């Protein structure tokens, strides 16, 4: 099979056993979990029937952390140890965290600088990955109490505008508790999947997703069971919480007459602002009272207070329309997602911009988790991809640093993934023997305005005059939206590559250490495992080649056939007693020399797929 990974649709039904897969909406304010294991995809509530799990963790001395509703009640009682809105810190460095007012009640380790922030709690040091992992554990408990089965994997949603570092950290949080991530999908995409499968109507849909701490807008086209994301945009530093902050600032000016509020008072004022915001969703005018102060606020004035934020949101809608080359009139449906879209001022702003009322027939709190659960069903094979397939895009441009600290974009934003793009660069000094490849993400022209993802060096470039060496840099973004970069000097074929990891946060080693310490009894012997994997992969390749030759041997030149035959023979002999490295190298070589054959077969099958011919025989 390795030669060509074509499997006929419906093949998975050979195994009639339904796998347990979950969809997770890991939100700033609330989180949810869904699964289709028991029939239709549904949200799993806690024992008292609550579907929303507040994304709040309270850390205690010598005891397991408390997650959810109970922890939420501790926010005002034990503010230093009760963490909220942790999603806002994902992917940020400690120094970027310093300026965020809503995190001022925590004690941060001040020595972290460019590394990930660490909150010092009474249960020890906690970073955003660990805190997110605790929320995930809280969600999984709901599944474990209902179903006695191992979880095959999870689809976790992230804001479309999450950058590479934020996505990586979300994955690491799942890894930390041993949860395998089938796919990270964008929240608005998940919502559109839930709506699209609900209505089963083709057309262009705008998803306007305003969560507690993030704002996304995406434009999707549903046609023939394929969800194609046309463009996505938004703002990770904008969310429903901002309305609480701006309203509490507005009240603070009046309550304290520009004087200083204590930390506790500010906390109370933010909580009060939140309840006022909710009341304004139900009533046109609200009487205010805080300490001795009394006042009123109506929805018109509230809209004025919030105007700068609403303008930013509408501008993001304009940008998405432009990126997709569509006009407002071509939009068939508008979907509102996220609890904050319950605010009438948001609904009115969206409706007046698109001149069309938004759809709200699925609960905006649940819709993202529902979509994630549906996609999880496809990825574990409980549902077929011919029912629906998701084609997503990379939300932010990816590029590398060139002379003068300028960014050369290699993959522009809103390109359908997976994608691979290569670009050639050259040396700028005579005799230059190495080159630093600096990978950045963002829309701006200057490196300093973009996010740095990785930096690595390609050495061993032969000495040449400036401009003579040719260095090809290839960017590959996989279906999860994660990037790997390869730089290659073309005359020497010298290669250097990185899987992009955030340049801060836990290193891969650190994650492994934690994993090992939490699985002390099931410590894996990594060498044995590597050897086992190499052997399996080699066997799979050999089997695939044999099968391919049987079916499509006519595509193979006789000389190639002989070379392949002898290498297959050598590899077969190596499998039982070679080292993992020897086996791996030989497998890679065999893979390379058969790639031409594989390409010819691909040609044949693509032709057949388009003609609609059965291709069952390909796999055998």
């Amino acid at each position, binding site marked *: *099979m*390795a030669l*060509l*990974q*074509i*499997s006929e*649709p419906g*093949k*998975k039904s050979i195994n009639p056993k339904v796998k347990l897969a979950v969809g997770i909406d890991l939100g700033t304010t609330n989180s949810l979990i869904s699964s289709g294991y028991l029939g239709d995809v549904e949200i799993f509530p806690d024992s008292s029937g609550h579907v929303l799990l507040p994304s709040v963790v309270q850390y205690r001395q010598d005891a397991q952390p408390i997650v959810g509703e109970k922890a939420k009640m501790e926010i005002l009682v034990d503010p230093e140890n009760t963490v909220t809105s942790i999603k806002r810190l994902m992917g940020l460095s400690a120094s970027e965290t310093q300026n965020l007012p809503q995190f001022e009640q925590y004690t941060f380790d001040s020595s972290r600088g460019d590394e990930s922030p660490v909150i010092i709690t009474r249960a020890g040091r906690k970073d955003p990955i660990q805190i997110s992992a605790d929320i995930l554990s809280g969600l999984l408990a709901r599944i474990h109490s209902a179903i006695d089965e191992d979880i095959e994997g999870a689809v976790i949603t992230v804001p479309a505008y999450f950058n590479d570092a934020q996505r990586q950290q979300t994955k690491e949080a799942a890894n930390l508790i041993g949860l395998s991530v089938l*796919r990270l999908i964008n929240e608005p995409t998940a919502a559109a999947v839930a709506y699209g499968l609900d209505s089963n109507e083709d057309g262009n849909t705008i998803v306007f997703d305003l969560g507690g701490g993030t704002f996304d807008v995406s434009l999707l086209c549903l*046609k*023939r*069971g*394929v969800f194609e994301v046309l463009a996505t945009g938004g703002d990770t530093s904008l969310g429903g919480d901002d309305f609480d902050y701006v309203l509490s600032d507005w009240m603070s000016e009046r309550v304290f007459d520009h004087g200083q509020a204590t930390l506790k008072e500010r906390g109370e004022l933010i909580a009060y602002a939140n309840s006022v915001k909710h009341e304004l969703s139900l009533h046109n005018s609200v009487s205010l009272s805080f300490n001795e102060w009394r006042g009123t606020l109506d929805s018109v004035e509230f809209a004025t207070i919030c105007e700068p934020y609403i303008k930013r949101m509408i*501008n993001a809608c*304009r*940008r998405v329309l*432009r990126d997709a080359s569509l006009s407002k009139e071509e939009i068939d449906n508008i979907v509102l997602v996220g609890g904050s879209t319950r605010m009438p001022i948001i609904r009115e702003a969206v409706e007046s911009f698109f001149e069309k009322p938004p759809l709200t027939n699925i609960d905006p709190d649940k819709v993202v988790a529902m979509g994630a659960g549906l996609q999880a069903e*496809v*990825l574990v*094979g409980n549902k077929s*991809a*011919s029912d629906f*397939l*998701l*084609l997503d895009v990379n939300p932010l441009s990816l590029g590398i640093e060139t002379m003068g600290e300028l960014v050369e974009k290699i993959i522009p934003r809103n*390109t*359908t*993934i*997976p*994608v*691979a*793009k290569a670009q050639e660069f050259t040396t700028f000094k005579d005799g230059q023997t190495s080159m630093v490849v600096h990978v950045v993400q963002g829309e701006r022209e200057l490196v300093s305005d973009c996010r740095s993802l990785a930096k690595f060096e390609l050495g061993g470039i032969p000495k040449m005059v400036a401009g003579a060496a040719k260095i090809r840099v290839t960017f*590959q973004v*996989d*279906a999860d939206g994660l990037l790997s970069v390869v730089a290659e000097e073309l005359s020497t074929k010298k290669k250097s590559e990185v899987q992009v990891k955030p340049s801060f946060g836990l290193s891969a080693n650190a994650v492994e250490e934690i994993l090992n310490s939490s699985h002390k009894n099931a410590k894996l012997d990594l060498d044995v495992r590597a050897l086992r994997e190499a052997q*399996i*992969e080699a066997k*799979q*390749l050999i089997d695939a080649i044999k099968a391919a030759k049987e079916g499509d041997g006519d595509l193979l030149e006789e000389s190639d056939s002989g070379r392949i035959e002898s290498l297959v023979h050598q590899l077969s002999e190596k499998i039982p007693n070679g080292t993992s490295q020897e086996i791996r190298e030989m497998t890679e070589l065999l*893979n390379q020399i058969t*790639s031409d054959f*594989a*390409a*010819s077969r*691909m*040609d044949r099958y*693509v*032709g057949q*797929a*388009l*003609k609609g011919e059965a291709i069952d025989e390909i796999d055998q």
Partner: protein
Amino acid sequence: MQSIKKNFFELFGLPISFDVDVESLSEKYHELQKEFHPDASSLETEIEKMRSVQFTSFVNEAYNTLKSPIKRAGYFLTTQGFDTENVSQNELDMDLLLEQMQLREKIAELPKDDSAMPALANLKQDVKQKLLIQQSSFADDARSEKYKSAKKTFHELQFLYKLLSEIEENEERRLEY
């Protein structure tokens, strides 16, 4: 490493021609994605996953190239053996270049806040109009195999697209604050 030998047109079972029906192209694109996307088959080995990612990356690039008229024009010329990366002065129409410069100056003189939006929208409309005219003249040249003339039109199209994206960047800058 290319995972298939077909060119972009052949991949979708299309004749090598600038005239492409985008609707039926998109239909074929969806068929291929449903068959070969990493989500569509249960991939077990690393090699399988890598191949699927590589092949669908190729399909995505092919689709993106063929659905965009300017990219399709460039790609079509390369299939006819032309180097679209290089262009010499005498291949271009001087009047057109002059007009471009004047339009650029016009953009630069506009006010820097969002009061310039209507003027930018007008300019955009103009440029789009010109693009449509040049596109149809490229299609005519391509059909009658006047490739030299087609190449000239292609470079003019490149200028117009550049101008269009500059206008859009200007719009974007005025939307941010």
